[in-house]
Structure formats: C-alpha cells, structure tokens
C-alpha cells in the first residue's frame, strides 16, 4: 500500500494552560472520506487551522503527499493542493458568483501581474470556474450577485471555490452549518458525489450526515483522539457513547 495522502503525527498545540490539540495522530489514505467529530470545544477548529496552515503546531508533524508541510504557510499549502472551505461563510459578496469561483481558479493559475487582457473573458479562468459551479449545481446562478444568494447557496459556493483549485485534499469545515433539512440533504448528496473524486476531511456536527458519508471517523474529545474507525466501530464504541454521543442519537443513526 502506498503512503497516505495526509499523515498527522503527534500534533500538539496549547494556548496557555489549555491543551487544544493533544498528541493527535491519524492518517488519511488517498480516496477516503474521513470525518472528524467531537463535542463543542473539542479542538476541531484548532486542528483544522493547523492543517490548513492558519495556525502552526507547537510540536508534531504533518505530512502531505510525502512532503513535510508542518511549517508551510497557508498560501503555499493551498498551492500544493490543500483546499479549505470555511465554517463561517467568507465570500466576495459584491462580486458575481462566477467571479468568486474564477478568483479561486486564478489563485492557482500563476501570478496575476497581467494588466491588459480582460479576465472575465479568459477561458482559462472561466471554464474551470463554470465546471466547478456546475458540479455544485449553481450554474444557473453564475451571473448573480453573490450577496443575493441564500445561505445554503453560499455554502455550495464555498464548496465550488474549494473545488476550483483542483485540490488533492478537501478540508471541509462544517459545510452543513446553518442549513435547513432540505439544503442539508442536497449537501449530503453533493458530498457523496464528490467523494468519488476527492480525498476529503470532513468536520461536521450533523451526525446523520457523518455516518451516512464517512469511510472512517475519528472522535476528538478535549483535544485528543479517543477513537478512530469505521462508522460501525464508532457506533459500537462505548467510550465514544459516554464521552460524546447521546445513546439515543447513536441508536437513531
């Protein structure tokens, strides 16, 4: 078996007296959808921040595609194929939907010191952007102002922007946050389709979605991974039940 796409070993981060990430190790092989769950304050966001490069770990190492990226800054990680979607929607609200995705494409298309040729008719930017929009089902919204879209559509646009950079690993930080039941179902369908083509690390509160989608699940409690395995293993794990999942919820899922 080849080495995993992402390998985290003995990662640790503390803020003063609080241990936010406590000796975390896990690996995600190519093609897997790995879910990271845990109660509020378990350190999921801190962990994602260290993976995407907006925070640096105190100790431990992160390997991505065989290279050590522990100290690599955020922009460079994005360039080698680590794409992150944001928990809180962070878009270019006064630009068109297509412009948003085209900017994400442009970020991966070399430098932007091109002063004369119109970017809005540049097929090298527009076509991949349109493809990403088609993929998330927003193609009919392409020319709309981003501010005019619904919250659910903003989440999908976030996803399209992450896809636009042709990432090797998608870090999805709560893509379901704030979605209604119908929109959630749509997002789950979308992720199921994306799973075929991308390796994904999914951080999510929606248990139903996690158990439906994940190949493997890691459970984070107080900064420490207390269990890691298939959805069935996790469901059966007594420690997980106790620490995090309500019994009823597990039975339901």
């Amino acid at each position, binding site marked *: 078996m080849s080495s995993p796409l992402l390998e985290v070993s003995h990662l640790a981060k503390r803020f003063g007296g609080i241990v936010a990430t406590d000796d975390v190790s896990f690996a995600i092989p190519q093609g897997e959808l790995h879910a990271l769950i845990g109660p509020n304050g378990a350190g999921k966001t801190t962990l994602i921040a260290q993976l995407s490069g907006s925070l640096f770990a105190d100790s431990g190492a992160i390997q991505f595609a065989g290279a050590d990226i522990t100290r690599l800054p955020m*922009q460079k990680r994005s360039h080698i194929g680590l794409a992150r979607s944001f928990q809180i929607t962070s*878009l*270019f609200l006064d630009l068109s939907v297509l*412009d948003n995705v085209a900017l994400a494409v442009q*970020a991966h298309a070399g430098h932007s010191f091109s*002063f004369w040729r119109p*970017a809005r008719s540049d097929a090298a930017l527009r076509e991949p952007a349109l493809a990403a929009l088609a993929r998330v089902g927003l193609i009919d919204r392409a020319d709309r102002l981003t501010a005019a879209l619904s919250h659910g559509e903003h989440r999908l646009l976030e996803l399209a922007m992450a896809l636009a950079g042709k990432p090797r690993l998608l870090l999805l930080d709560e893509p379901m946050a704030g979605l209604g039941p119908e929109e959630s179902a749509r997002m789950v369908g979308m992720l199921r389709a994306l799973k075929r083509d991308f390796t994904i690390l999914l951080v999510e509160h929606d248990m139903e979605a996690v158990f439906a989608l994940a190949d493997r699940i890691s459970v984070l409690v107080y900064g420490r991974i207390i269990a890691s395995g298939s959805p069935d293993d996790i469901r059966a794990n007594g420690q997980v039940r106790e620490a995090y999942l309500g019994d009823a919820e597990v039975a339901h899922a």
Partner: protein
Amino acid sequence: MPPLTFRNVLVAVLLIALVLLPVYSHLAGDRFALTLFTRIVIMALAAVSLNLILGFGGMMSFGHAVYLGIGGYAVGALANEGVYSGFVQWPVVILASALFALVIGALSLRTRGVYFIMITLAFAQMAYYIFAGIARYGGDDGLTIYKRSQFVDPLNLSNKTQFYYVCLTILFAAIYLVYRLINSRFGMVLQGVRSNEVRMRAVGFPTYRYKLTAFVIAGVLCGLSGALLANQADFVSPSVMYWTRSGDLIIMVVLGGMGTVVGPVMGAIALLVLEEVLSGFTEYWQIILGPLLLLVVLFARGGIDGLLGMLSERFPARRPS
C-alpha cells in the same frame, strides 16, 4: 458596444462635450470656460487615479494630493534649474511619483483601516512641510514657472487650446488604462481585496504586492496630473498637497461614484462647477456643498454615476422617455 441606456448615452454626451468645449469657448468668446474646464480635466485625472485604489482596491488613501505636489515640483524645480524640455521633465515626474508612491505604499499598506488613512495623511503632510521649507524653491510662497514644458513644434503648451487637448488626451488615456486594468487579472485581484482581503489571502493571493503595484500606478497618474496643474497655473506651491486637497479628491470620487470608471470625472465636474457657481452667490459656498454631499452619501451610494444607473433601470432606453 455597451448597451444604449440612459446612463451610457449621457456619458457619451459628456465625453463629446468635453472634446467640443474649446469650440464653444472660441465661438462664444468665453475664455473663462476653457480655463475652468482645463482645470476640471486635470483634477478629473487625479480623481481617476485615486479611484483606482479607493474605488476598486478599497484603499482609503487620505494623502493622494501629495502626488499633485510631487508632479508639480518636479516640473517647477527643473524649470527653475533651466531644464524646460518636457522630454526630461515628464519622465522625471513619472519616476519621482512612482518612487514616492513605492515608499509611502510599502510602509502604509502594512496597516489597514484607520491606521492606513492616518499614515497616508501623515506622509502627505510631511511632504507639505518639507516643500514649504525649501527656500530655493520659494518655500511657503511657492515657485513661479516662467516657461511651460517644452516639446517639439508644433506642440505648444502655452497655447490654451492645445494645452486643453493635451490634458484631455491624457485623461482619456488614463480612463482607458484604468478600464483595462480593472478588468484584467490584476484588476480582479484588486476587487477581491476590496471585497474580502482575508479570503484573498486564504485562497492563495499574496495581496500586498498587488496592492502596492496599484498604489504606485495611481501615484504616477496623479503625478502627471500635478505636472499639468503646475503648467496650467505657471506656478506650484506646497498648498496643492495640503490635506484638504486630498479631501477634495476623495469628495470627487465619492460624489461621482466609487468604483466606476467615469464616475470620478463626473465628480470632478460636479464639484468644481458647483464651487464656481455657488461661490458666485456666497463666500460660504461649502455650507451648501456639505448637505449636498450628505444627500449623496445617504441616498445615492453609487454617487452620480450610480444615480444615473438607477435612472437607466427605471426608464429603459427602449421606451421613449
């Protein structure tokens, strides 16, 4: 070909009127109109340059008039030393403003928000006091320029009509340049920065170098405006870079419409014509300007250009209006 809306027709009429203005001036014997509009065209150039960083890049520079001074003094100081050739003067203007913008930008663009406003203001005021202290170039009293920039015959900047057309050509070229810039990849980055700079960096853009480049381009365009202004007045003094002048430029941009290509031109015309007309009635013309500006900010966020755009939607061009 842009669509035939009310706004676009009006813009076209405005641009044609600017081209034909000297004809009117000659026929009607109204020499003052030519003088006023030469000044308007020059200030419009400065406003267009500010709009590139303020309207499209979201960089609230409160010291933009400093380049009017840099450009003006480059011409004035060289003329004072006996160098009249425009082929020397103008490249020096461009170089000096670029260098100045590079230094101010490199330092101020590391900050944002109120700090950025204050630092750009501080740099401009520093330049103001430095030039006010150079006795060789007139200090506080300013510097008279005895000969305008010399080019080859038959181009003669001392001829008012010719000078007007030189200014207008440069303004139109600058508008076209900004138009191309903001629609290029570079321009998309700039607009992304205005919209959400944090996200731009997260998505992988090193935003600082793009902002700095825009800042330098805007500085050079404004420097040219300063060179023209000094030529028109045959005089340059530190007061052209006083902070209230930077404020005037911001007013022009906001009044005309931030982030539209020709908005600042409308803003420059509106402000300077208003100043001319109102100051005929009262010395305290700004008492009228103030509330007017307030109305624009409160009810027409897009400025005059935005207002015209709204009217175009209300009255589509297909129907006779």
